[in-house]
């Protein structure tokens, strides 16, 4: 049997809006995934190091401060540096449409804005991780 999907959920940057990330954390856990939540105010370095240490399949970063371009650029650079090709990077929060192509180019695979159902996130992660694990 496959090992359960391991997900690191993180709040990066300075904003303290953790309602969404906590709801997602519970929904992923209820869907059978192993969820590690970092808590608030993490630097990109802290997020990537925690992901390495915890050997996760997925990193989900929640940002509602508008600093998503800066923070995801740093996270994706660090992930490349550490060779984390098989880790799925996702983003959630207030992210304007016009920034989405740029984030995709950096390597953020999925972006989930306000109004997304947790079911949609669960299904997305399941199918993407299955693909990544081959």
């Amino acid at each position: 049997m496959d090992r359960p999907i391991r997900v690191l959920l993180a709040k990066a940057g300075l904003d303290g809006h953790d309602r969404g990330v906590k709801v997602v954390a519970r929904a992923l856990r209820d869907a059978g995934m192993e969820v590690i939540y970092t808590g608030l105010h993490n630097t990109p370095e802290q997020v990537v190091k925690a992901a390495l240490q915890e050997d996760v399949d997925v990193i989900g970063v929640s940002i509602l401060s508008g600093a998503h371009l800066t923070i995801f650029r740093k996270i994706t650079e660090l992930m490349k540096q550490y060779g984390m090709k098989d880790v799925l990077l996702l983003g959630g929060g207030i992210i304007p449409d016009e920034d989405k192509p740029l984030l995709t180019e950096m390597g953020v695979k999925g972006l989930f804005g306000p109004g997304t159902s947790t079911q949609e996130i669960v299904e997305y992660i399941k199918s993407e991780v299955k693909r990544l694990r081959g």
Partner: protein
Amino acid sequence: MSAQERKSQFLTVSNLPIKRLYTPQDLTDFNYERDLGYPGEYPFTRGIYHTMYRGRLWTMRQFAGFGGPEETNQRFKYLLREGQTGLSTAFDMPTLMGLDSDHPLADGEVGVEGVAVDTLRDFEILFEGIPLDQVTTSFTINPSAPVIYAMYIAIGDQQGVPREKLRGTIQNDMLKEFIAQKEWVIPPRPSLDLIVDIFEFGMKETPNFNLISISGYHIREAGSTAVQELAFTLADGMAYVEAALKRGLDIDRLGPQLSFFFNAHNSFFEEIAKFRAARRIWARIMRERYGAKNPDSWKLRFHTQTAGCTLTEQQPLNNIIRVTLQALAAVLGGTQSLHTNSYDEALALPSEEAVRIALRTQQIIAYESGVADTIDPLGGSYFVEALTNEIERRALEYIKRIEEMGGGSILEGVLAGIENGFFQREIAQAAYEYQKQVESGDQIIVGVNRYVMPEDEKKKIKILRVDPEVQRRQIERLRRVRAERDNRVVKRALERLEEAVRTRENTMPYILEAVKAYASVGEIMDVFRRIYGSYREPASFA
């Protein structure tokens, strides 16, 4: 007989059950004088002023701030030209967290969520051409509140405005930060000391300034129910009163300088009942529990903001209607000031056009609808009175639980609840329940889980973006200030502040001195970090 109803049960958005019909049977114990009284009279259920909006309308106060102080100064002037009657300042995340614009953690956040402020130089630009004796200004800031409050006083001093003429509000409510909004510098107990420093200083120096805005808004946004919002906020208010009494402050001088801040959410009547219950509970607590004698101490004065979390990214123009209903609830609930959200705020900071529509919404309610022409028009409704009683009853139950956690002290109960995660768990649980109701379709959100449309409307909205240049400019100005100021004076002021913190003297005069020497927000807050350490919340989502 058609007993068939649309749903098996009818609930508010906070899961309060609603009956088919309310009659005198629901108010059997009702006593007009005791439960309602007259506007401007104890227990103020119907409003805190004798004439309410017939005398003066509520203050239309749109929260604004983005970019550098130059951009925000322009937005302030624009809002005043458009008929706004009070200013309200939004700060960027680094300023809120007590960090300077050149701090590594500030990268990408400078001027993005609000205006960036590092030193008094920024405040001079922010209030350029705005005489402080002619406006009231509200500052949404908490951990670094003492620094910002000192900056406002310093600008008043520069303009030659007597301190007693300064009017406005500093949010300064750290308890709800630890409970819900999550902006902090130092741990809860020393944070409370700093708040009481502001009380003690402000009661003497700026007697017409609200020294705190005890806020339920963020608790609600974090996912709480209406009852939790009310109960936790009032408990926080009681904790502040107890902390002030411990310092030996006079409740009847402090009482009139306390203000509140609530959310106006979707369930229309529940919100109105919440505002009415809030006034009645606070009046009784202040008079009966804490022995306040000044009627102004009994009055719960509050600001309202419509619920940001109800705004949808999908079909954003629908948000105008949501905001209208929420604003109407705030007005029918007797608010003293109001911020209406802009329809594009699930996408980004609001554009000028969106802000104008939000302000016009208030103006239409005020001048066209006629709802402001009589006081508490829903008073006496079987339904609204029964709901007011029910919300009061449930809120008091929570307050009792908090009191038990503190062994009879609300102050200790609130601190214990923060430290053991009680509030955080209660709120996260309510948020998760709500999400499940949305996903099951029990809770309908128009445009999100019902009446969904292809997302074409969203594309047409022009959103506001903050120029990354702002960060560079802000850092450059900070460096220039640091180079030009007299650094010996700054060093001495910071040392004197540190000494005051260590000897438990009131820190406000020393913060003011440091601010006037152009010490930065980060430098001043670092003094507190050195002594008390930085707070970190244990990470938990359960």
